[in-house]
């Protein structure tokens, strides 16, 4: 993987397309553009088109040659391809209208100048002309509305899904729950930004997928109709993967359904697109599309790992194990607000270092981590982390950042606390 010098901006523009992981497409360059036949053809058109726009604005002609790499992606679903076609159709129509309108205007400014001796005519209306330029745009609009309606109707065909995933937005991560028919084996996990804070704060080089990488991507099978049930836990979020051509707001208390069928294996990236507070810019979406057999293998491995993590609740850990595990959980779950150094961002996000809770009675500490603090960004992590993770992160907070209580927190302590309520 190519790494860049700190703060350096790459000259090569990276496309927002998925980077293919399937072996047959391994020839694609790291920043390459997938050169399927249809795309290559579109590029030619796109280049011409963007030149036209660039010329119209007089200032951006130099950008036109790279602009086709920054057009809307064709994507990997039928819907995203139809949306792309619709987008290009309307863009072309606008360009043609633009050429006619600005052409007439430009000609007039050139030919009807006072400095070349133009004498002003005094006409100020022409009913026939005015009727024409009301009717003609109406016809053009109808020509746009017909295909747009057709694509929209297709998008609303939510039936016949092969699988269903619940997508829940949190400040500032996503939760994916696979709603499986096999009762009791529901798989659920959180998906959060994996880019290190050091890259964000320019202390280390930025990776290729800076801000577009997560710890646990959503994984789905190739060519299957995946239905997503989108909702939110706190504020509004929006789930968007450009290559799938779908975007939907995640709204607390309301569930919305969307779907996609990915026709090409690969990794596809997107971002939260509804302002959701401080780290709105830091909650990416990554979807891995795998062939069915690889997907099945992944799913069963995840289910096993999930069960193992749950089983950890009955284990006892050494203090250093708890510290190591706790640090991981802390950096992933707590550090965005309380900061990696435990200093927080007072007054909104209090410090952990030297705090009354992290150095005082342990039950109060467990209580606030488990149940949250209503009316603040402090969520109820008892519903997000398992007993082992809770124990480790509480242990870590009570022994890191200069805090030094003399207790060791084990998963069983969390269970006891919970049972005692």
């Amino acid at each position, binding site marked *: 993987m190519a790494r860049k010098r700190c703060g350096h901006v790459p000259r090569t523009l990276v496309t927002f397309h998925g980077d293919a992981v399937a072996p047959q497409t391994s020839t694609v360059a790291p920043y390459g553009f997938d050169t399927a036949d249809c795309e290559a053809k579109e590029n030619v058109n796109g280049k011409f088109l963007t030149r036209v726009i660039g010329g119209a604005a007089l200032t951006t002609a130099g950008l036109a040659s790279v602009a086709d790499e920054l057009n809307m992606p064709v994507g990997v679903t039928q819907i995203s391809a139809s949306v792309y076609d619709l987008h290009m159709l309307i863009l072309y129509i606008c360009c043609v209208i633009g050429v006619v309108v600005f052409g007439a205007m430009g000609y007039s400014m050139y030919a009807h100048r006072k400095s070349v001796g133009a004498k002003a005519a005094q006409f100020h209306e022409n009913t026939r002309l005015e009727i024409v330029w009301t009717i003609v745009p109406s016809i053009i609009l109808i020509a746009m509305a017909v295909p747009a309606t057709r694509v929209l109707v297709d998008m609303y065909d939510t039936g016949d899904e092969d699988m269903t995933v619940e997508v829940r937005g949190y400040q500032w991560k996503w939760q994916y729950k696979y709603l499986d028919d096999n009762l009791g084996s529901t798989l659920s996990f959180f998906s959060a930004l994996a880019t290190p804070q050091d890259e964000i704060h320019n202390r280390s080089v930025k990776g290729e997928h800076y801000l577009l990488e997560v710890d646990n991507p959503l994984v789905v099978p190739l060519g299957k109709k995946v239905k997503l049930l989108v909702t939110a836990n706190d504020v509004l979020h929006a789930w968007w993967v450009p290559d799938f051509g779908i975007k939907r707001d995640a709204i607390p208390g309301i569930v919305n359904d969307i779907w996609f069928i990915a026709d090409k294996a690969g990794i596809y990236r997107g971002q939260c697109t509804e302002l959701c507070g401080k780290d709105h810019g830091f909650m990416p979406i990554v979807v891995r599309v795998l062939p069915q057999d690889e997907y099945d293998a992944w799913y069963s491995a995840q289910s096993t790992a999930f069960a193992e993590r749950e089983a950890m609740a009955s284990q006892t850990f050494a203090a250093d194990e708890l510290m190591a595990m706790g640090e991981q959980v802390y950096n992933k779950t707590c550090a965005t607000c309380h900061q990696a150094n435990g200093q927080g961002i007072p007054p909104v996000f209090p410090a952990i270092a030297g705090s009354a809770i992290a150095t005082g009675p342990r039950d109060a500490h467990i209580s606030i981590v488990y149940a949250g603090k209503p009316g*603040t960004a402090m969520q109820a992590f008892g519903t997000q982390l398992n007993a082992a993770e809770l124990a480790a992160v509480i242990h870590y907070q009570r022994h890191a950042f200069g805090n030094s209580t003399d207790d060791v927190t084990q998963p069983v302590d969390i269970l006891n606390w919970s049972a005692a309520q």
Partner: protein
Amino acid sequence: MASRNATTAAKLSLIGVGMFAFAFALVPLYDLLCEVTGLGGRTGDAYVYEAATTKVDDSRLIKVNFLTGTNEGMPWRFWAQSTSVRVHPGELTEVKFFVRNPTDRVMVAQAIPSVAPGSAAEYFHKTECFCFERQVLKPGEELEMPMRFLLAPELPGYVQTVSLSYSLFDITELAAAGSIRPDA
């Protein structure tokens, strides 16, 4: 002239006041619109089921997904007996939901239902639901909550799956303030 201006200003002020009132009138209007069209996936109030008059449509089987979620800051455990069932339209079905309050305080909760696709909401009838009332749980208390529903036989043919989501909200403070909207 001055009095004419004053009259005009007074009339125009009335428009302003009227539009301010209109903003508040939008609230019940919006609720009405949601209930009529299923906008936002809202389901109606308790439905009276009459076995004699409801015809079960054996020709199709609809999958119903159940989503259980707890909103921000809500530490309760909340789960359904199963994540999905398959039902015939017109058939009355019972599903159990469970909540547990793991905290050390008495808490009040309200479950908010939402149905996707929104166009199916008006065909989703609940004869009994914990969402019709709030739940008050003592520390450590667990509660089993049955929910009975049927899908109207008129459910459009293109709907093959209906997803019902419950979001559990902590309304302890709202309840204490006694100012929950009466239609909640």
